């Protein structure tokens, strides 16, 4: 499904909704919007793509609202990862992030250093294998446990630990070599 089609379908679905089921959707969306967008952004590296992916995720949430029982977080993470993987395969190359802003104050330099590192890490995430990238995003950025990450990826916990370890070292070397 294209992004435009997904957005249109979501719009139509939202226009036609009424009742408690839809209030559930609103509540869930408000509660997990940041999580979905942030995860999608880290996986895709571009905020426009992340928004498109988030729309797709919430459309799927709307369609499957009746089937989700309990905490929807694992379901949302899983769908976000799947949507981003699909998106990642067919998208265009990512543009270089914006250049740094010149600000000589000490506090600003610390902030800039952190922002530089974050930009480098975003570029570094691009170099990882999809599973490594997903594992790092879920475990280190979203703060999920190894067990939760394993459940979302559908692999064993030991495999997650291995993926995470390899990915962290790769990213550290990438940052060191590109500073």
């Amino acid at each position, binding site marked *: 499904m294209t992004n435009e089609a997904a957005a249109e379908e*979501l*719009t*139509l679905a*939202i*226009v036609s909704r009424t009742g408690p089921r839809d209030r559930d959707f609103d509540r869930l*969306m408000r509660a997990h*919007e*940041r999580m*979905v*967008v*942030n995860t999608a*952004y*880290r996986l895709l590296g571009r*905020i426009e793509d*992340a*928004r498109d992916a*988030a*729309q797709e995720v*919430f459309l799927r949430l709307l369609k499957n609202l009746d089937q989700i029982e309990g905490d929807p977080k694992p379901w949302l993470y899983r769908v976000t990862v799947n949507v981003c993987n699909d998106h990642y395969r067919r998208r265009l190359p990512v543009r270089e992030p914006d250049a740094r802003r010149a600000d000589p104050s000490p506090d600003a330099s610390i902030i800039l250093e*952190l922002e530089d*590192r*974050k930009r480098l*890490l975003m570029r570094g995430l691009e170099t990882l294998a999809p599973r490594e990238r997903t594992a*790092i995003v879920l475990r*280190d*950025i*979203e*703060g999920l446990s190894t067990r939760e990450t394993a459940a979302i990826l559908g692999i064993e916990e030991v495999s997650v*630990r291995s993926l*995470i*370890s*390899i*990915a*962290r*070292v790769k*990213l*550290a*070397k990438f*940052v*060191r070599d590109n500073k």
Partner: protein
Amino acid sequence: MTCQECELALGLEQSDARLDEHLRECTECRELSIELRANAEAFASMATDKFAPVRVPVGRPVLSAAFAAAAAILLAIFAAFHFREQKLPPVHYTLGPMTLEIPQPPPPAPKRVRATQPLMVKMLTDDPNVVIYWQIDAEQEGQQEGMER
């Protein structure tokens, strides 16, 4: 401990005496360790990054839907009026005795009536007992009718 073992341990965020000893001795692994810690801080910072929320177009589509509904109603009203004007009157069929009408020939055109009398020409001859009359009828124009007495 080898550098490879050290990298694995650093990646898993493990900490023990052997690792610390290796880090004291190996500059490269120490630098890697510093980068890993800095990356962890950056990741933590990423988790709190704020993004503009995904705008799910709730208000605008509802408004659009209202406009669409109004347009549909107007269209329906227009169509109803339009088709009512064009509707033909209802046709009623009644069955009755069948009659055959034979078309009559058109009535003959009235004859032209000459208002004037036939022209009479009287011709005298040498013989007093013979007189010639010429009567000229309009319908027999060009024809001559002779009468002898």
